[in-house]
């Protein structure tokens, strides 16, 4: 036996599952491709974004990249905003886990820390209605929300959002300090609160996984606006930080460079077949329990390879659009030296007031993403575009709008390339498209009421929301393609799933805190199953 429990993956759910298992006294082996952070991208000095821009002669290294990889030309694609220091999170995906699709462009990661490397840190709890719709037990998951929030530190959202976004979190960090532009929007919402609340909107500061006070090796956030370029002083939580801590614990082993391919569930153990990510040599591991946390697409790959009689699985993904806007009152105003690049404002839209079908938008300011990404998009000469966007950027606020997703329309994922890759077919139903359109219109109205002028509404291809779910959703029926409440696969009693695959409904709120909570909850079941 190689380990008592094998955990596959090192993303948000994997590290919290592993942490809970280790705390429960279990011995854990984590298998992961674990693409390491690049060592050729220089770390920026500890300074504010503006000061670095004015003083650092070597800023091109971390802004454009050592090979100028940020200078992509052509229409803006999903992922264009990923900065050089974060690009490793997408490395080797096409080579090791290819995916074929004409209508689905997802993000996957084989990095050390998974997609959490580029997480926006929005930390939302799902409501009881949302959890029930997803097939999860709200009471059981509430405890796990509190556990993981205490581990990572979550800033307090505004009171108006607590019930919908953070009801299960016991202890908060202090609320984030919004930039002047965002504070203006919040002020405008407060003045129109009654009217907008009646229309189903709630607006407030976003709960973020960042510290307002020093904690161990992590420091309080200093508002240097460098969140896209580095994890300075570990103020904003990333899963690799938990992985670092785990690697210092005697009951935890991390084996990097392993791509898990399939499993075989035997009577009292699981045999895990894998390949070395380097020389592709076959590898085999044995454990009493296996916990799959490889992300929805990664877990689906492993599951389908292990169950050749099952041809395809379903898939969920939030419909997503983004709306660049101008908060015109801020035009030509100076911007504070210190501010935040992450989402500072969340808008919930619940038109039927049931709490079960809520859409959500997050607002970001633009400055630290640089003008060069914008100016090529204007149908004007680049010299004037530069002048124009320099003027506009103090007022530029980007709203990312997510809608919930349920099993509707045609979606399927199946194996392709002789089992090496996946093929995804993904369509939203006409009713869902129409609902998203109506809600996008409502959001644009709200945006105007907050004093912003929407400039466009851009809809990237399905998959760009980076929130996936539903491939192995929880069910009470003994279906080999489904899981039990505990995360255990109906068809493989020694194998558990602990990622977004469990969600039979995908709320619009950011899913990462829920993934961590799922990791914790499933780990408790796994530990209990071993007696």
């Amino acid at each position, binding site marked *: 036996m190689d380990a008592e429990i094998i955990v596959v993956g090192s993303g948000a759910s994997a590290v919290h599952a592993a942490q809970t298992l280790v705390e429960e006294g279990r011995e854990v082996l984590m298998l992961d491709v674990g693409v390491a952070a690049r060592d050729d991208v220089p770390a920026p000095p500890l300074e504010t974004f503006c000061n670095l821009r004015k003083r650092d002669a070597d800023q091109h290294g971390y802004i*454009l990249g050592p090979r100028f990889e940020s200078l992509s030309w052509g229409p803006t694609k999903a992922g264009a905003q990923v900065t050089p220091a974060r690009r490793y999170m997408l490395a080797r995906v096409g080579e090791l886990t290819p995916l074929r699709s004409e209508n689905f462009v997802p993000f996957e990661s084989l990095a050390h820390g998974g997609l959490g490397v580029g997480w926006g840190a929005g930390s939302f709890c799902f409501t009881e209605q949302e959890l029930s719709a997803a097939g999860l037990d709200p009471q059981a998951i509430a405890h796990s929300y509190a556990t993981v929030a205490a581990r990572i530190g979550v800033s307090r959202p505004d009171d108006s959002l607590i019930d919908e976004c953070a009801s299960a979190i016991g202890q908060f960090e202090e609320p984030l300090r919004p930039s002047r532009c965002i504070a203006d929007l919040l002020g405008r919402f407060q003045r129109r609160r009654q009217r907008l609340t009646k229309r189903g909107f709630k607006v407030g500061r976003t709960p973020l996984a960042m510290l307002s006070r020093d904690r161990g090796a992590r420091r309080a956030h200093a508002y240097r606006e460098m969140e896209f370029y580095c994890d300075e002083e570990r103020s904003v939580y990333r899963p690799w930080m938990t992985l670092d801590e785990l690697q210092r614990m005697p009951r935890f082993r991390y084996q990097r460079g392993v791509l898990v391919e399939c499993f075989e569930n035997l009577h009292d153990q699981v045999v895990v077949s894998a390949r070395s990510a380097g020389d592709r040599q076959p590898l085999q591991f044995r454990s009493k329990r296996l916990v799959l946390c490889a992300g929805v697409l990664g877990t689906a790959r492993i599951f389908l390879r292990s169950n050749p009689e099952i041809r395809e699985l379903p898939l969920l993904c939030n419909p997503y659009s983004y709306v660049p806007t101008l908060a015109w009152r801020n*035009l030509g105003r100076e911007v504070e030296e210190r501010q935040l690049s992450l989402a500072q404002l969340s808008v919930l839209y619940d038109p039927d007031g049931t709490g079960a079908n809520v859409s959500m938008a997050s607002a970001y300011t633009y400055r630290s993403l640089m003008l060069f990404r914008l100016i*090529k998009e204007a149908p004007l000469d680049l010299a004037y575009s530069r002048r124009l966007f320099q003027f506009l950027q103090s007022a530029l606020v980007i709203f990312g709008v997510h809608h919930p997703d349920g099993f509707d329309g045609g979606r399927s994922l199946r194996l392709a390339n002789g089992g090496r890759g996946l093929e995804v077919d993904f369509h939203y139903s006409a009713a869902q498209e129409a609902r998203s359109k109506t809600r996008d219109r409502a959001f644009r109205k709200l945006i105007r009421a907050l004093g912003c002028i929407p400039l466009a509404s851009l809809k990237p291809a399905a998959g760009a929301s980076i929130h996936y779910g539903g491939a192995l959703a929880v069910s009470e029926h003994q279906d080999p393609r489904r899981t039990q409440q505990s995360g255990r696969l109906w068809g493989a009693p020694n194998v558990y799933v602990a990622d977004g695959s469990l969600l039979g409904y995908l709320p619009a709120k950011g899913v990462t805190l829920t993934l961590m909570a799922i990791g914790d909850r499933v780990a408790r079941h796994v530990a209990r199953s071993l007696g």
Partner: protein
Amino acid sequence: MDSTSLISKPVSNALLQPAREQGQYMTDTQREAPILSTYLLGRTCDAATSILYEQALGARGVVMTEAQAKLWARVLRQPRLLPFVDAGLALLDRYNPLRQRIFIMSAVLEVRPEFAGEFLPRRYRWHEIGVLMLGGCSAVLHSLAGVCLVRVLFRDSYGR
């Protein structure tokens, strides 16, 4: 002027240093950097910025057809054509390699500390906003004239 022949290397400060000190041994590509800098910001750039531009072009592998290379050479000889060609292509073919070269120069200037003030947000006075608006009108006129110019100069690709 074939940028594809340039070897893509990571930018190193050691490489920039001699140029910072001496500003000599400039290649054709390095010579076009000050022209583009003057077009974009109204100021010329130093040798270190030119070298960074050359490396960025090499790394991105900007490839031009023979016709595009000819037009580019002409534009560099007569920089007054730049705003018209840039604006015309912005309407006719936004992601043309000629515009890509200007875009790369703009990004390179943005990451040079001496030009940061031209890109970071700042306070605007009313008269500056007025000047910007007038600039917008002029940009539209450039676009209209640019479309005609590009159609004449690029008859094979965009001519009617």
